[in-house]
């Protein structure tokens, strides 16, 4: 932790000390209290399909595999959407994006529903902290500012931080959306010719001076916002931060890697020049036009970045282990959405909901757990809130749309339907008419595209027989398609009801 991080931490922590209840919590020792700690470690844009712990051919995640040996591993876990805003909102509210309305890029949860969040459910007897390193996740997290004891600024543990909203602690959500996402956003023309240009020039100059030693592609940075960081500093800072928390606590730590740009460390640069050729999949009509060669290169960079991340995760794992954190904590590793390199589409700015972009990791290590438990039934990001409230002995809120995770209080239910929603081009204030909705039920996945073509369309895949989603069963009209279709359309209709005139 450098001087800047220290100043930031003290700057944020000092006002937090004045909040009722926080002072006493900070002085209770880590090991006291019977309630378990919850550590949610979220890696942005980490697809389960690119992790060796889930069977990927490249050895991208040996350290996460080590963690899996003491965790419950969920093999069919789904994000709430295919990008950060709905992904984070679903996880933290236990509701789907068509309910919480966090649908758009830079969007937020419907104001009247912002009280429905995991931190409020945990209440004041837990220390509630968050580190939204991803600025998009900070748009959601700062909506819950009244229910959090501490929000670390996104630039904490970083090398370069030009976010301005940190200076507006009383109005962080709107200040971030006004200043960092609009007036001073670095990758667009600023909304202030004078100060905006000056700010961009200063940021560009400081960025050019930052050493990229150890990072052949340059040091990692937040793609749309002026934040740069090094993986090793980030994880070292994080390890110290977690150890400084006082039990019982719930911490939501949303780390930006391995989100693009994929900046692997030197150790893993070129590791996957192995000639690996993923299955060739036909171009999708709603996909971009990237060539297979482009997609192969991007996939390789992504895999190398995941391996770099995994290496640092291994160091974090060891640090937490040495500190005895695993003895009294649920440690969760998950993501907000995946990433895809197929069918002409790269990354996750897409209406598509194929598994690589929505199938995310979920591994949960319970206090003192020493053996691995594998769960294969489908689960969703909305299940985390009810599960952890249950494990902490809190009542599950009635508004929650998730269920208890199997292996942690819940039962396997193959008849359960879960949804993934993409509607970034649809107004959050209106019914969903331009959207993609995927419904997973048993082994089947039905995908509904509405508003993208002249006519709405469906795709249907059997994930038990066709994990790569190569054969669309819908045109053949199998008997089981109709009830699935009716259920999906009925669920969408119910979600749209409050917004119909």
């Amino acid at each position, binding site marked *: 932790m450098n001087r800047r991080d220290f100043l930031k931490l003290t700057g944020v922590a000092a006002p937090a000390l004045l909040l009722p209840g926080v002072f006493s919590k900070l002085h209770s020792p880590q090991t006291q209290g019977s309630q378990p700690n919850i550590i949610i470690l979220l890696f942005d844009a980490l697809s389960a399909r690119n992790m060796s712990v889930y069977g990927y051919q490249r050895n991208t995640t040996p350290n996460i595999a080590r963690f899996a040996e003491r965790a419950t591993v969920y093999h069919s876990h789904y994000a709430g959407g295919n990008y950060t805003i709905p992904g984070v909102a679903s996880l933290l509210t236990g509701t789907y994006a068509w309910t919480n309305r966090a649908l758009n890029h830079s*969007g937020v949860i419907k104001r009247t529903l912002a009280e429905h969040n995991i931190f409020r459910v945990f209440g004041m007897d837990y220390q509630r902290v968050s580190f939204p390193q991803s600025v998009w996740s900070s748009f959601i997290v700062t909506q819950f500012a009244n229910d959090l004891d501490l929000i670390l600024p996104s630039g904490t543990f970083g090398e370069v931080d030009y976010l301005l909203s940190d200076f507006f602690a009383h109005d962080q959500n709107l200040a971030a*959306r006004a200043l960092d996402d609009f007036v001073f956003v670095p990758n667009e023309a600023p*909304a*202030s010719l*004078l*100060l*905006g240009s000056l700010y961009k020039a200063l940021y560009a100059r400081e960025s050019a001076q930052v050493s990229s030693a150890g990072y052949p592609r340059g040091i990692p940075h937040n793609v749309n916002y002026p934040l740069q960081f090094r993986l090793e500093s980030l994880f070292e800072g994080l390890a110290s931060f977690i150890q400084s928390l006082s039990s019982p606590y719930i911490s939501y730590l949303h780390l930006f890697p391995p989100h693009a740009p994929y900046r692997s460390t030197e150790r893993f640069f070129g590791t996957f020049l192995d000639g690996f050729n993923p299955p060739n999949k036909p171009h999708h009509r709603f996909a971009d036009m990237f060539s297979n060669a482009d997609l192969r290169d991007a996939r390789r960079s992504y895999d190398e970045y995941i391996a770099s991340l995994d290496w640092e995760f291994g160091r974090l794992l060891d640090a937490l282990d040495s500190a005895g954190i695993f003895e009294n904590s649920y440690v969760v590793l998950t993501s907000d959405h995946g990433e895809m390199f197929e069918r002409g589409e790269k990354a996750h700015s897409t209406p598509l909901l194929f598994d690589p972009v929505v199938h995310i990791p979920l591994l949960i290590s319970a206090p003192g757990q020493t053996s691995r438990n594998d769960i294969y039934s489908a689960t969703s990001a909305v299940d985390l809130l009810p599960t952890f409230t249950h494990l902490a002995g809190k009542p599950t809120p009635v508004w929650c749309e998730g269920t208890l995770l199997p292996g942690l209080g819940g039962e396997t239910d193959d008849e359960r339907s879960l949804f993934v929603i993409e509607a970034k081009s649809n107004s959050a204030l209106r019914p969903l008419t331009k959207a993609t909705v995927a419904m997973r039920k048993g082994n089947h996945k039905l995908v509904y595209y509405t508003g993208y073509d002249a006519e709405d369309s469906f795709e249907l895949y059997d994930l038990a027989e066709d994990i790569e989603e190569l054969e669309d069963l819908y045109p053949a009209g199998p008997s089981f398609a109709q009830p699935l279709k009716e259920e999906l359309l009925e669920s969408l209709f119910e979600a749209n009801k409050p917004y119909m005139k």
Partner: protein
Amino acid sequence: MSSAGPFKKLPSLEQAAQVFAVIAMIEYSWALLRFFYRLPSWLFYSSVGEIGVFFSYMIVVNLLGSVLMLAVFVFLAVLLPRAWFVERFVSRSASLTLLGMGYLIYVNRYFSSADSYPLASYTRDLTVLVIMIVLALLIDRVAFLRNLLEGFASRMVVFLYLLLPVSAIALLVVVFRNLI
């Protein structure tokens, strides 16, 4: 123009208002363009109140930018010999403003990424600054252009009757939200 004591090289309030009006008109117009460019996406997920707050932050930033630029000109007036700047305060400040902000519009219109931002180069910045100063001096030597600039600046003052109250309200909104 003030004529006594340590403030003898300060421009008059009228001159300062004319220069400020030129700066603010360009700065606020650009900001409004950006605001209306972004507005459709905000309407997808933001309330009217939230959009009003975004507008307020934007206006306050632009107010600060405009005041800062005027302060630079006032500082130059105090620093330089009277004949170099104060006596031609409006025309020289206005021509520098138009040239400088014209260049910023060009830069921000065509170079959006921070990675390739032209203003990050000291050499280029210095070159552009020298060219602008030379051009401003040349413009000032042509009576027609000088009169045109002074006339333009004096007519811009009328917009301050709108911009200043709007800025004051925006400032109140931002201060209020950050104090409560």
